[in-house]
């Protein structure tokens, strides 16, 4: 009897050992999320999208049967903590790819991931991350292992300005249109400032002096009065959503009503609900269909992914969630390609990413914009879908106005 117990436990132990051997065949992936901290309003949904997508990939068989071994860490938008987490991963998990978040972690890790050859998928769409070789005179340092899904901040702003120019003509307005950049004096709103102003001038806009308003939501009537006096026709909002909501409310009060153009993190479903009528007509870049959109085939997959953390399937997922899902699925596609060619390593994933031409991840048709990466150009896409929003008494609408294809000029690489 005792012998059989011993034998049995030996068997269990050996099985466990075999199991751990099997586990060694997993694909380690890091996920730096921003659930707390200053950018958590948009970082939360994005992080959920990534986490759910990673879980979903495992649920549906992983990468050709190899499961992802992923670790989600909330770094609170604190660069030193992101670096600490990265070092922890490199000594333990040894990820072959990382899903990251914003400016703080992405910029701090550019050099590290390049040295360690770990592809870094960020939600920071800063223009200078698009230059993998450092050839562009605008970039200070190459970012060979950085990828992101979507047009860069600069290209988004260029797209919105292009749309504004078309809008001006379509409306048959006379005279020279005036464009103004608004945003806090902060790296994020400033990122597309110069690039966008240059393109606006090229398109025939008169570019006015920028207006500074705080990233923290508050009363912005003074800024709105300045905006009104300036006579701007098109105003680009560079801040994140919370601050834009309060600005639009203030501007409605003082009667400043140019056509507002909002950046990718500056306007979403929550802001439409919060700003109510004050936000009507804001033109924004939308990179994915909304949760209410049932048409695109890929939305079925997104709904399945959403069930990973919400089995009822009733939770509304906003645009940032979709972007998180897309970012993760491009990584998955690259891993599939890498696996077919050999081992899934950081280098192989980078190489696989750079073979993608007008690629849409399988299962997400109509959700992710077709994207192309090459070994000299990491501008995944330059296509900017411009939508306007309408509060409509709570049953808000996002109406597509146009898709602007921003030209892929070589001199704009890294800017």
């Amino acid at each position: 009897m005792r012998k059989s117990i011993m034998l049995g436990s030996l068997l269990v132990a050996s099985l466990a050992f075999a199991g751990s051997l099997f586990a060694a065949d997993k694909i380690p992936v890091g996920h730096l999320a921003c659930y707390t901290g200053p950018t958590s309003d948009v970082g939360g949904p994005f992080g959920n999208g990534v986490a759910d997508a990673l879980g979903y990939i495992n649920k549906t068989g992983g990468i050709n049967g190899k499961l992802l071994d992923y670790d989600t860490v909330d770094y609170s938008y604190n660069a030193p903590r992101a670096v600490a987490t990265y070092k922890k991963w490199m000594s333990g998990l040894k990820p072959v790819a990382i899903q990251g978040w914003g400016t703080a972690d992405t910029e701090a890790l550019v050099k590290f991931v390049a040295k360690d050859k770990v592809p870094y998928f960020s939600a920071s769409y800063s223009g200078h991350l698009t230059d993998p070789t450092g050839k562009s005179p605008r970039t200070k340092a190459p970012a060979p292992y950085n990828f992101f899904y979507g047009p860069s901040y600069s290209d988004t702003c260029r797209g919105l300005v292009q749309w504004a120019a078309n809008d001006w003509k379509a409306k048959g307005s006379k005279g020279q249109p005036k464009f103004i950049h608004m945003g806090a004096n902060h790296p994020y709103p400033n990122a597309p400032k110069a690039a966008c102003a240059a393109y606006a001038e090229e398109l025939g806009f008169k570019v006015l002096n920028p207006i500074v308003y705080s990233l923290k939501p508050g009363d912005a009537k003074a800024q709105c009065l300045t905006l009104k006096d300036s006579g701007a026709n098109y105003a680009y909002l560079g801040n994140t959503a919370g601050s834009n909501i309060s600005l639009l409310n203030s501007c409605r009060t003082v009667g400043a009503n140019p056509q507002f153009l909002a950046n990718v993190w500056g306007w979403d479903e929550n802001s439409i609900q919060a700003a109510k009528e004050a936000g009507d007509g804001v033109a924004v870049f939308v990179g994915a269909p909304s949760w209410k959109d049932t048409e695109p085939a890929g939305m079925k997959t997104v709904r399945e992914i959403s069930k990973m953390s919400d089995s009822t399937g009733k939770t509304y997922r906003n645009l940032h969630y979709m972007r998180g899902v897309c970012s993760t699925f491009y990584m998955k596609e690259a891993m599939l390609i890498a696996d077919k060619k050999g081992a899934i390593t950081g280098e192989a994933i980078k190489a696989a990413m750079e073979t993608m031409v007008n690629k849409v991840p399988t299962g997400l048709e109509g959700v992710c914009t077709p994207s192309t990466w090459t070994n000299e150009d990491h501008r995944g896409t330059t296509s900017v879908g411009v939508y306007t929003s309408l509060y409509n008494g709570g049953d808000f609408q996002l109406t597509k106005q146009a898709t602007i294809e921003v030209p892929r000029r070589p001199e704009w690489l890294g800017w």
Partner: protein
Amino acid sequence: MASAHSRMNCGEFRTTYQQDTTIFPTPLARRTALFSVLFLMVAPYFLGPYYLNLGIQIGYYGIAALGLNIVVGFTGQISLGHAAFFGFGAFASAWLNNTTGLPVFFCIPLAGAMTMALGLIVGIPAGRIKGLYLAIATLASQYILEDFFSRAEWFTGGSYGAMANPFSIFGFEFNNDQLYFYVVLFYVVVMFLFGTNLMRSRDGRAFVAVRDHYLSAEIMGINLTKYRILSFGISSLYAGIGGALFAHYLGFVSAEGFTIGLSIQFLGMIIIGGLGSVMGTMFGTAFMVLLPEVMEAGIGLVGGGSGLIQALAYIREMAIGMAIILFLIFEPDGLAHRWRMIKAYWKLYPFSY
């Protein structure tokens, strides 16, 4: 028997002023400190990169926090702009290195000197005002510098931030954590010894006198304005060196990082560690750096889905605030005081009274 008797100490007796003002109060403390440094010198050979990273973080934050402790804990002034000085040091070192090509080895102390110069200027109001008014004046310097960081493209790279090269001297690069750990360790030892020594000096005693009763200090002939400004200057020197070490470690400096939040965190470090205690500063810094990591590990042990991780992330953030409040209530003198209590307990064990 006489020799054995002479070796048996039942207390520490000091018969000269020199003995009374040694850096280490007992031979055991001196040996422990020496041993700790020796231990840390061999540590990079067996510590993983994660622990090295934490050690380096504790090092550069600790240096900056000691600076704040000199101005807050020893001189009794208040500063809410310490993070801005920390940031200035970081940008200054990166800027010096990028524009002049001077090896980083020299840039770090130079950045400290530049930050000190700035601190002496910003400290001028401190010579005239005190209490809440001084708090607001330092708060203003925090915002002015923050704005300067995002505007002064020539100095900080503006919104793109500045690249900082790895620590190097004459072509030899300290480009991994093992080597950088020694750099930070060197600065920690030098700066902490300097801090301790400062407090034994005439200037250090003047600081304490200003803190304890500024009127009496002035009557005793201490130049209040001079010492208040000097205190800010020295505090900025520490912040600048801490910031420069931070910059060359991360390799990238962004204007986003040096907010009022970090200033408050520095205050939290010295409150938890112990105001007016050099050793406490180190305790407090280690506590603040390690707490989120320990919580993170705890969350990892509990495990579970992403929902749970997300919920626990908030608990972790709250824990830091909670720790500060609990310390203020139960241990206002900080970890340094707790440490002394523990030592006293064992010294008298089992016959404590």
